[in-house]
């Protein structure tokens, strides 16, 4: 058959892989024993998780008086972590859904793990509002159910309630999208399973996937529809998160720029977290042929773009604070840059605006160690962005008599550490037991390498009889 081959394009997968090579490379690590590097990672991350679990247990028993909050600074570490983790999740959806709609075929190597990252990040994020309620065992009160109190219904006009619906929907749809995407790969694992347990397990998980063309046709359509649904969903989720701030009358929060500013920041932070994880997974799971210079380069370029939008938003905020002529707005922004939390503000600006500029250089984009370090810096910067927005806007109130300072307690810090523990433990378990790369999708885009794959199949097994 005539195939369109463009030699000017770099292949998406290195090393002249045949279909079978793809199956082998992705499945083999799941069927063998884990590497020492994996054991080291999981030990460290589960210790972090354990520390966090102890901290959360303690604050549930004693109450959130264990935090460093006061009457003036009523939101700080906890909500910072919540917004940070939700933001991390958004890049996963960007890669799996938005890039799918834009037909960016390079996404096939990274979409599975980016989606997994979304799910784990949303799990981490969900913990924080839950413990912030103080009595997490009553969390079901946020749901509209006929109750014995009247029924007294929930307040549908509150952005905090919108959050409940946005985050739950986001989690459910992301999880469904991920499971649907896994079906063909579960079938591959089932059909090559050697042990009885694995066979039985993947027999259940694959739901009897056969590779039938009729199923594929419906599956592709459903995948497209889910991508189409997830794209506006991801924008709505962070828009709603920004409403938590924008609908209040706190200077520094009460601005119309918040929804696009938050969405751009979310995708920016998420992309840098995807890069961090990809570069780790690439080494730990030996996926050098699948996550190539091209993938890392494409993500670096997205980061430059998103970083630009974030930088523009920082500038716009300052301009509008001055241009508005509002004394309170002016004060908040002057205080941000020169007040007691100036160190946090300038950490944020350095990490989020200066760091991405290094990625303009191809030499730096192709040095994976440097890219890894830069992505870590952006993660730090984006955490500080939320901290700056929340704490600096609150700690200097309208009334100087209620001005206060804030510093986190050990419980709050341990909770943050614990959320990282949960995230990395979940990610490492995922790397170990599920295919990190969507095999069926990669086989579909071997494209350029396809002709070589065909020829190789003949060479290896003899010409067709």
């Amino acid at each position, binding site marked *: 058959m005539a195939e369109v081959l463009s030699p000017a394009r770099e292949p998406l997968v290195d090393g002249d892989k045949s279909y079978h090579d793809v199956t082998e490379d992705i499945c083999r690590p799941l069927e063998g024993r884990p590497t020492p590097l994996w054991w080291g990672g999981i030990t460290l991350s589960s210790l972090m998780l354990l520390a966090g679990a102890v901290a959360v247990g303690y604050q549930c028993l004693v109450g959130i008086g264990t935090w460093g909050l006061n009457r003036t600074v009523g939101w700080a570490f906890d909500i910072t972590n919540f917004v940070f983790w939700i933001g991390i999740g958004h890049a996963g959806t960007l890669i799996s859904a938005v890039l799918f709609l834009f037909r960016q075929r390079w996404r096939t190597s990274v979409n599975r793990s980016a989606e997994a990252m979304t799910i784990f990040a949303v799990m981490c994020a969900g913990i924080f509002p839950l413990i912030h309620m103080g009595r997490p065992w009553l969390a079901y009160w946020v749901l509209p159910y006929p109750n014995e109190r009247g029924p007294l219904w929930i307040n*549908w006009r509150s952005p905090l309630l919108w959050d409940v619906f946005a985050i739950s929907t986001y989690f459910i*749809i992301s999880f469904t999208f991920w499971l649907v995407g896994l079906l063909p790969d579960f079938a591959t694992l089932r059909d090559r399973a050697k042990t009885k347990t694995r066979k039985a397990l993947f027999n259940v998980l694959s739901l*009897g996937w*056969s*590779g039938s063309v009729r199923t594929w046709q*419906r599956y592709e359509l459903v995948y497209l529809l*889910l991508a189409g649904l*997830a794209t506006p969903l991801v924008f709505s989720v962070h828009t709603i998160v920004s409403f938590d701030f924008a609908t209040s009358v706190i200077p520094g929060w009460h601005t119309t720029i918040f929804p696009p500013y938050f969405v751009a920041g979310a995708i920016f932070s998420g992309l840098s977290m995807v890069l961090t994880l990809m570069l780790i997974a690439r080494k730990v799971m030996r996926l050098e042929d699948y996550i190539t210079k091209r993938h890392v380069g494409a993500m670096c370029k997205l980061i430059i773009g998103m970083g630009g939008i974030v930088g523009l938003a920082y500038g716009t905020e300052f301009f509008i604070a001055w241009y508005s002529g509002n004394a309170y707005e002016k004060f908040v922004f002057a205080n941000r840059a020169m007040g007691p939390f100036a160190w946090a503000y300038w950490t944020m600006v350095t990490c989020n605006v200066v760091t991405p500029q290094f990625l303009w250089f191809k030499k730096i984009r192709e040095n994976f160690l440097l890219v890894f370090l830069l992505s870590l810096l952006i993660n730090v910067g984006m955490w500080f962005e939320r901290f700056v927005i929340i704490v600096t806007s609150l700690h200097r109130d309208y009334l100087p008599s209620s001005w206060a300072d804030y510093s986190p307690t050990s419980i709050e810090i341990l909770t943050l550490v614990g959320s990282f523990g949960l995230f990395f433990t979940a990610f490492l378990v995922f790397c170990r037991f599920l295919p990190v790369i969507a095999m069926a999708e990669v086989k579909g885009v071997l494209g350029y390498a396809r002709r070589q794959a065909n020829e190789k*199949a003949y060479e290896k*097994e003899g010409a067709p009889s």
Partner: protein
Amino acid sequence: MSARVLTAVFRTEAEVLAATRSAREEGFEIVDVYTPYHVHGMDEALGLRPSRLTWVCFLCGAAGLLLALWLQFWTSAVSWPLNVGGKPFDSMPAFVPIAFEITVLFAGLGVVAALLIRARLRPGRAARPPGLERVTDDRFALVVRLTRARPGQHVFEGLSAAHGAESVLDRLEETS
């Protein structure tokens, strides 16, 4: 009654596509084609009609939208009207975010449920006729059923070989 079912196994996408087209032209009854990934152009080669799952998605989304708007309106303005900051009981603009989320939730879950039902995917279902384990790895299989009025086995074998089939399997299938 039993019918004979022939399965030709191919190594590449291009071969199975070409073989499917000619099998259809020859007038074979094509039972199914099994592939490790979605082969573009296979729908046309088989003459499959577009799936109607889009409509399921739309209807589920519409149901979600109506339900969310009704629930918010009914609870805020009918069941127990509560004055929140002097806002009107029926504050429609404030109901938009949740109405949107529920629309997406219903449309997404609805269309996936419809896919599972329509494609008969469920835990423990037997995947396919045995002997084709490699179609989830690196093989493409074209399955046809022989009927009295249609061309015979040798035509199919010739056609498959011409398109580079690796092997042709032959088995009996019980039909009711």
